[in-house]
């Protein structure tokens, strides 16, 4: 079965939160050494809560869709709750099974989020 199902294609063609944030309080850059893809993630965190989040950069369908789904999922959530997000949660959002190499694409956005939360 193809991993390019409706959810992934929808978020690939219309990524949510694909933007930069001028009033950002946090900004990070991450890189997938396998393919050289770079992802920038910016966020506003105020009063222990993630108020807004956006991402930009180049990537494959899996990494773009996962960034889109993840940013949608975490917006308006207390930082303490977000610290517990696991790779399994991200894969759950994508609704597909991924090989180890594609998993790296899918988890790039989580790496960025974790970096933001640890700043």
């Amino acid at each position: 079965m193809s991993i390019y199902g409706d959810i992934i294609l929808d978020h690939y063609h219309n990524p949510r939160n694909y933007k930069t944030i001028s009033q950002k309080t946090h900004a990070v850059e991450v890189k997938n050494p396998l393919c050289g893809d770079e992802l920038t993630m910016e966020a506003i965190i105020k009063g222990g809560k993630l108020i807004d989040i956006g991402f930009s950069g180049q990537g494959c369908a899996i990494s773009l869709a996962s960034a889109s789904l993840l940013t949608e999922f975490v917006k308006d959530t207390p930082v303490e709750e977000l610290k517990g997000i696991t790779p399994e949660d991200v894969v759950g959002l994508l609704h597909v099974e991924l090989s180890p190499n594609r998993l790296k694409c899918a988890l790039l956005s989580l790496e960025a989020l974790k970096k933001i939360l640890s700043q």
Partner: protein
Amino acid sequence: MHRSIHRKHMTSIQDIKKQFPIFQNNPSLTYLDSSATSLKPQTVIDAVNQYYIEYSANIHRGIYTIAEKATQEYERARKSIATFINASSPEEVIFTRGTTESLNLVASSLGSEIIGKDDEIVTTIMEHHSNFVPWQEIATKAQGSLVIIPIRDDFTLAVESTGKSQISDFISSKTKLLAITYVSNTLGTINSVKDIITAAKKINPDIITIVDAAQAAPHMPIDVQDVGCDFLAFSGHKMCGPTGIGVLWGKRALLERMRPYQFGGEMIDHVTVEKTTYASPPHKFEAGTPAIAQAIGLGAAVDFLNAVGVEKIHQHEVTLAAHTITSLKKTFGDRITIYSPPAPYRSGIVTFTFGKYHAHDVAHILDEEGVAVRAGHHCTMPLHTHLGIPASVRASFYLYNIEEDVKKLVAGLKKVEAVLK
């Protein structure tokens, strides 16, 4: 009469495919990643097996029958390889783990000894990291510099005969080493290594020349004496042989002069508490128990390639690559960008980017259609930076590929457009 000749040709390709058991286990596999590693014929698998089940003894020490048989087979493989590349003697053939180790051996045993401050190492922008990073490392350490020959818009080296640049723009009295690939693993460009080396040595006869033949040895006849280089490196696993075995060929006089690469058993002449003297080449560079089964397997791979005919393999791949390029251009027009040089520089490698689609997505959907290609930078990051792309898709052909594989590639790419829109 005509009919039977035609049939004979048809069966010969099918016969070749039949000799690769992976196709019995994966009947619908279209394997277009032979530049990464090739598939293995039954004769090679059998040769490796035979060593393990009939005479799996260590070499060069045993006085008993199977140890002598193992030594004989290991050294016979060395002889076959020497003949395969027209080395002047088997002693010039050193077994290594592969191209990477072969190049590191030269870099460490010779390169780091001769490169000093302000000296220059010349290489090209199209090198695989394994023929780039070791030189960069030595140059940096010695406070020398790395000089890089660029490519032209047609993906051939700037110093090829019709170009504006000349080898004299890069080689000078400061040059100590020239490290160059025979065939680019990304562009598929066949470089005129003989002409380039001849021209370089005319300017500075003292330079040491190293040829990375990882993508040449499996695909075209090689004659080290004709090329005129000092060292040539290649990997067994890309030429129908096992993994974990490769070759460094070097001119005897240089091998004699070089320091050993690793120290220990098998590489010594005489050891006392005070001092050790080393064995002669090639043993000086083969410390420890080598990859015996793999060396014997590589010998069998060379026999196999000789039986098919390396020139014939080359022609077969070049034809498939040419058809692929024509077919891709015809089907996708401007939506596909192909990074291939014109004939006669072209080999059996076709690398491309496809519209706005990421190389990983292209490779993934092709895989879902049963077509195995490579996506990424193919260990040529400086080249990709030069081309201004993060990644590309590479289809590479070998003797077991057929026209049907080209059709499946094109159909698979149509599917990519259908899925990703």
